[in-house]
């Protein structure tokens, strides 16, 4: 197991280097804008632009730029300086990370609390009106785009522009340590909106898995032992049916930790996703690189954790 984890971690480094190289190349081949021009102000002249270009190091060959970047990352954990803010990308990301983590963790809790019970109830009473209704609603939730759902939420329930003033609206995010109450209030709607489609997807996935599991021979054995039905379902059925869901969950968390771009943008939450979005808007290469690397890092790590967890959940799986 130890050797397996080490090998996987080495692989992760390789993957991250490849990801950064690809981002670099894409940015140079298809730039969203010229960073030097953007920074030159309202009346740019060629000399100023050339000067900025030189200061940013953009006049060097691409491979030199890339080498310097990778060297900085590997030796000094330095992800460069944002063109836009003139601040280290590392501290920008660390500054934004709490908001993204808050959004992700809260949404995960919401969607699990919603999706798992709904999935179980639908699975044990398939084809009843309850089942049909919840599965119908879940299909709607999966189909609704997050930005649309977010805007609808704001127009209906936000306490500034909403029809009824219930929840905090956009751009109200406050740090957890600064004011826990406001932190919670400001995130209620983003959590719901982000969790909606995930909850629906998880409910459907769990339902399908559990229906299949409940027809297994070992479920019959559990019943023949005299276990109460709820224990048969939870301990023997759900235990098996939930295992594949853990895989999906791990990857989803990994993806969201890299920035829930749409939700953060709609609700104007200062998270990593928002940072990445702004970085793209402003052709801020170091920011783009940093956020892409962060996203890739979370996905790779989530993958590894999922695989290790899988071996723990399913004793038949063994890594060597």
């Amino acid at each position, binding site marked *: 197991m130890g050797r*397996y984890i080490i*090998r996987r971690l080495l*692989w992760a480094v390789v993957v991250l280097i490849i990801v950064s190289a690809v981002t670099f190349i894409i940015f140079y081949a298809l730039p969203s804008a010229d960073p030097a021009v953007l920074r030159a102000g309202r009346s740019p002249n060629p000399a100023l632009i050339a000067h900025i270009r030189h200061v940013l190091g953009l006049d060097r060959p691409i491979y030199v730029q890339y080498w310097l970047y990778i060297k900085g990352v590997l030796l000094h954990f330095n992800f460069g300086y944002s063109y836009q803010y003139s601040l280290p990308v590392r501290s920008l990301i660390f500054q934004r990370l709490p908001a993204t983590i808050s959004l992700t963790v809260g949404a995960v809790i919401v969607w699990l609390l919603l999706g798992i019970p709904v999935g179980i109830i639908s699975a044990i009473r398939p084809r009843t009106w309850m089942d049909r209704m919840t599965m119908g609603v879940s299909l709607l939730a999966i189909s609704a785009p997050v930005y649309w759902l977010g805007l609808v939420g704001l127009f209906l329930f936000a306490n500034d522009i909403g029809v009824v003033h219930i929840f905090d609206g956009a751009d109200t995010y406050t740090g957890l340590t600064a004011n826990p109450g406001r932190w919670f209030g400001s995130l209620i709607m983003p959590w719901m909106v982000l969790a909606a489609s995930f909850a629906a997807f998880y409910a459907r996935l769990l339902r399908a898995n559990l229906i299949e599991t409940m027809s297994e021979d070992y479920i019959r054995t559990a019943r023949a032992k005299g276990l109460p039905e709820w224990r048969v379902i939870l301990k023997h059925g759900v235990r098996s049916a939930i295992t594949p869901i853990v895989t999906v969950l791990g990857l989803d968390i990994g993806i969201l930790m890299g920035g829930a771009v749409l939700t953060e943008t709609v609700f104007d939450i200062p998270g990593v996703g928002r940072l990445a979005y702004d970085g793209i808007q402003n052709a801020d290469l170091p920011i783009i690189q940093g956020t892409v690397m962060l996203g890739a890092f979370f996905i790779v790590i989530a993958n590894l954790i999922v695989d290790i967890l899988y071996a723990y959940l399913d004793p038949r799986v063994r890594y*060597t």
Partner: protein
Amino acid sequence: MTTTEQRATASTGTTATPLLEVRDLVKHFPITRGIVFQRKIGAVKAVDGVSFEVKRGETLGLVGETGCGKSTTARLLVRLLDPTGGQVLFEGEDIAKRKGDGLKALHREVQMIFQDPYSSLNPRKTVGSVIAEPFAIHRMLTEKGARKRRVQELMDRVGLNPEHYNRYPHEFSGGQRQRIGVARAIALDPKLLVADEPVSALDVSIQAQVLNLLRSLQHEFNLTLIFIAHDLSVVRHMCDRVAVMYLGKVVELAPNEALYGYPRHPYTGALLSAVPVPDPAQSRRRGRQLLSGDVPSPANPPSACRFHTRCPKAQEVCSVDEPPLEDKGAGSVAACHFPLTREEVHRQDPVAAE
């Protein structure tokens, strides 16, 4: 030598050379480890030095328990798998050397029937096209209507209603599906039919129908049959000679009556004694000889004689020296240092020795 004698040798010449000869056949499936660079850390020794001959027109049975390598052997014989070592000679020619057209020709002469009539038929093809497939592959019966006519003849021959030509496999019962498999296998008039557990997925009352069909087809087409089964009663009913396999090796090979009447290898004896006989009076009389434990893993078989860990007659030499497959009289060959005596067979199973 006179001319008549010469003619006699010439005419018997074809029957004297076996249709199929298997020499030291070995198939190891590697066990690998590693994600990026796979290293071989061991092998499942599915078939580990198997030799036998099959004469024209005879039925050879291969019996044994899970993991003995009988199904792997079958797949090697029809080249669904390539051997790790050894040779399969079909009409004196190594089938491993066949490529392209030669391989195609081999598949015309050697056909296989599988155990599971459910999964071995493509559910999206009509029965007619399943049975006609061999003709399509070998570009035979190309004139209009000929294929359909031939397929319907085949269906009729195996006891299927020829009018059901356009039906799909799921519309047939297990026994009928096995008949479809048989029809497909005999479509090209093969010389050798390899049947791998052809009746073990079928209900008892249907088994007999398929067994009778195979026997009558064999007589009619002068087929050579290799019959693989775990059911010793079925093998006794079907086969002229029987090879008993254990963990990738043949432990005994004998004519039907010799094997069932006087098994020489203790494993054969135990196997026969374990089969329940549908006769309560007899089963009370029989002194059941129970083997201890399960079959060891073919990935890590016991040393020397592979049966020594479970053998009631095993002595020290059995774990050191591997006994060769040698003549034990009455046409039997067995690989054992201490073959069963008549008294032992009788004590164990008064039925068999009678």
